[in-house]
């Protein structure tokens, strides 16, 4: 491993916390080159840790310092980082999370997917704040990390199996203390929206599974070997008790009682449910997919992620007796987006995505685009029609099998539209190549902006500006400067939550979020962090992501929305028209750039922006 751009790299030491490192950290990242199973350690200074915290924030710092500019995301030089955070391992609820960060093979820009599981705790307690994988193994392999010891073993028994099966197999081979993140067949075949999975959870967006698959790594297994202590154990314990109590309140009731699928019927009522590839924003079959009824008819149990007191996982019974964790985005993407209303078919498609290791949002969005192409006669697939659940299942299988159509769709809707042409790019439902989540931009104007400018692409977890649209303070059909300010605020909050890391389902319990998060970080690290510092940290992380993208070829026109969303209008139940226009979107983007200290081309303009961009 060569030290690059100021990064200090050295052979991996033992796993004890080095002297002088802030609470909650080890002060180092383990870099594993799976070409020959060699390791180096990157020292993470207190300045770096304080500036980027962990998770998505530290992930972008690692990418800027370890990824060669212009690297092929599926090439051996491309790093894939599993990034932990100072809160991981504390009793703070929802903190057992980690970020998987890489250059996305779907977008060509940064992607950072978060997930919750015991892998976060075990991975961190190998003695590292991050584990970075580079290189390419000579054969399908499992990467085992136990403290500073790293081994590559054959994955012959796991290759070709689902992520869940691979995870179970690895734990059977090496023992229950090992925690495993694995890819499905989609990752092995480098489908550009393949996931990394563990404990039934998925780091879903941006094709991280393909990056791991390109390295010939089926699974990464980690085993804890050390401990890490917060600076103020008693203070953290008291804060954890308080947060735990608050997590049982009304602010999280939706997640506890029905889960995110509760969005579906509500979104339908307010014309924000994208349907049939964004041709409409209400779905006549929404009632059939409503959590309010499905939970009664099919709900089996509820689960929690590791170290979580909310318990948002709602497990439904599928046809044939199997079970499935159901979320709004799965059901939206494979249901209304594809015009499918039969719950059996939608749940089956969602389960198939899990088995194959596919991101449901990109899979559904890409298939919906293909359905529209087929109905317009732009691609030769007469069987692919909106509303046909069996067609969705067939398309999912073909994507992974690599048939002619499947290979086209396996690159996502942007690339597929570039191949098909004939105006199909106008209705390809993506930003920067990432398929859009279940929030209709024409009736959620702050969200429209958030989707357009976000570094990861069309994404509801790094922006979250729909909160501003739905809070009742802004006219969600009349986007302007106020919406830009709201989008900045929600993006900043997400940047901090994704770096600490805390689950966003907890966000409603914080009255003064930045101040309260600063207090938590101070208790863990021993730093005297305040709200102002954390606000600056948020801006730094957002700008660092933009800087990484700029290095990888981002141009201003990448901050934009598909033509359909700018040309076609929607009529709401009230009679008002939901419409975006190029002019309106431009005004909001300009206001966003100004608020971020960027020039008209989206590049750092102010001294503060340049300083924080680094």
């Amino acid at each position, binding site marked *: 491993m060569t030290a690059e751009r100021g990064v200090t790299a050295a052979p991996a030491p033992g796993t004890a916390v080095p002297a002088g490192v802030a609470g909650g950290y080890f002060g180092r990242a383990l870099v594993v080159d799976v070409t020959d199973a060699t390791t180096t350690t990157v020292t993470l200074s207190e300045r770096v840790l304080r500036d980027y915290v962990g998770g998505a924030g530290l992930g972008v710092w690692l990418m800027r310092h370890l990824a060669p500019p212009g690297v092929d995301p599926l090439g051996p030089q491309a790093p894939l980082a599993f990034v932990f955070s100072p809160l991981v391992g504390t009793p703070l609820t929802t903190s057992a999370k980690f970020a998987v960060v890489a250059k996305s093979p779907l977008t060509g820009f940064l992607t950072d997917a978060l997930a919750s599981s015991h892998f976060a705790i075990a991975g961190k307690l190998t003695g590292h704040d991050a584990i970075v994988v580079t290189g390419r193994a000579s054969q399908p392999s499992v990467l085992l990390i136990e403290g500073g010891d790293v081994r590559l073993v054959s994955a012959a028994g796991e290759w070709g199996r689902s992520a869940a099966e691979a995870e179970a197999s690895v734990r059977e081979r090496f023992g229950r203390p090992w925690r495993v993140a694995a890819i499905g067949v989609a990752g092995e075949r480098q489908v550009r929206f393949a996931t990394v999975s563990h404990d039934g959870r998925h780091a879903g967006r941006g094709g991280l599974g393909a990056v791991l698959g390109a390295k010939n790594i089926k699974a990464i297994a980690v085993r804890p070997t050390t401990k890490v202590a917060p600076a103020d154990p008693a203070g953290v314990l008291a804060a954890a008790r308080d947060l735990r109590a608050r997590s049982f309140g009304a602010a999280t009731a939706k997640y506890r009682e029905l889960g995110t699928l509760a969005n579906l019927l509500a979104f339908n009522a307010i014309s924000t449910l994208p349907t049939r590839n964004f041709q409409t924003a209400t779905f006549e079959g929404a009632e059939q997919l409503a959590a309010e009824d499905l939970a009664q008819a099919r709900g089996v149990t509820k689960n929690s992620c590791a170290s979580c007191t909310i318990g948002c996982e709602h497990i439904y019974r599928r046809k044939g007796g199997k079970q499935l964790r159901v*979320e709004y985005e799965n059901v939206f993407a494979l249901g209304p987006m594809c015009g499918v209303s039969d719950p059996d078919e939608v749940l089956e498609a969602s389960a198939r995505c899990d088995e194959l290791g596919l991101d449901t949002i990109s899979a559904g969005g890409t298939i919906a685009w293909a359905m529209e192409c087929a109905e317009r006669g732009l691609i030769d697939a007469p069987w692919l029609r909106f509303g046909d659940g069996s067609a969705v299942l067939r398309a999912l299988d073909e994507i992974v099998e690599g048939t002619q159509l499947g290979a086209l769709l396996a690159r996502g809707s942007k690339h597929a539209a570039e191949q098909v042409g004939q105006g199909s790019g106008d209705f390809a439902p993506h930003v920067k190549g990432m398929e859009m989540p279940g929030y209709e931009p024409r009736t959620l104007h702050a969200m429209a902006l958030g989707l357009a400018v976000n570094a990861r692409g069309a994404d509801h977890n790094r922006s979250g500006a729909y909160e501003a649209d*739905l809070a009742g303070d802004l006219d969600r*059909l*009349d986007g302007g400067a106020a919406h830009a300010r709201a989008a900045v605020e929600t993006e900043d909050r997400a940047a901090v939550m994704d770096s600490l890391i805390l689950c966003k389902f907890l966000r409603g319990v914080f009255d003064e979020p930045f101040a309260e998060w600063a207090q938590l970080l101070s208790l863990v690290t021993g730093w005297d962090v305040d709200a102002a510092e954390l606000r600056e940290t948020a801006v730094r992380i957002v700008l660092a992501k933009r800087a990484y993208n700029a290095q990888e070829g981002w141009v201003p026109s990448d901050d934009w929305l598909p033509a359909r969303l700018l040309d076609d209008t929607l009529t709401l139940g009230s009679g008002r028209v939901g419409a975006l226009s190029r002019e309106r979107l431009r005004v909001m983007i300009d206001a966003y750039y100004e608020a971020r200290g960027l020039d008209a081309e989206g590049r750092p303009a102010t001294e503060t922006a340049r300083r924080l961009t680094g």
Partner: protein
Amino acid sequence: MGTPKASLPWHGSTLLRQVAGVAARALEATGGGPVVVVRAPGQELPELPDTAEVHDDPVEGRGPLQGIAVGLAAVADRAEVAFVCSTDLPFLQVAFIGRVLAAFDDAGVPPDVVLPMARGHRQPLAAGYRTSLAPRVAKLVEADRLKPAFLFEECEVRRLDDAALHADARLAAADPLLDSVVNVNEPDDYAAALARPAPEVTVQCFGVLASQGRRGSRTVRAATIGTAAEAIGLPFDRHVLAALNGDQTSRDPHLPLMTGDQVSFLSADAGG
């Protein structure tokens, strides 16, 4: 009346809050614009929507034309036309305001004033005015010509009788008797107004709010979002949002409702 009309209670709200809320809804439906409340100098007002602007008459007791002059001047740089009304119209309908404002675009000579002739009377305090009239109205006040009729003599007035008003199907359905112009001048008027049944609206709860027997849509009588929530036993707290007719969401319990409205109650943490 014993109490200033603006502060008269109205179904958990006040008359002024009701009228200002209806005006805000009408403006939202027609593309937005400010709601301006003109008061006597220093007059105490009940709570208003956050978006309402308050302006003072320069002197007290100069009649409605002065208030019209102040109001039109306040919005002249932001709007070409304005709907002007008094505070004592408890049954004012969103569709009525929409009809009056739309009449500025009807065929014929562009009017300066759209004057409803509803229920057999001129309704200068439920009428539309071009905001460019503000200086002319101010001059009339200076000249002590304080009746709206003096203004109408000087400008182009488009009169809308009952039939012309009801040419708008939405208004005909929402307000067949044109109660929008019914005002309350005496205690008996007020008591009679309060005794009328509240608007009939459809209410539906979503997500966790639909538990405890609240699944499905229900018809209730409610004058505001707050009373609609109350009617179905739903605490309208910070964890709850209301969407009106599938459109804007609101946390304002005083938001007025009209007959036929559909109210959707959602979890405030909508999203995933």
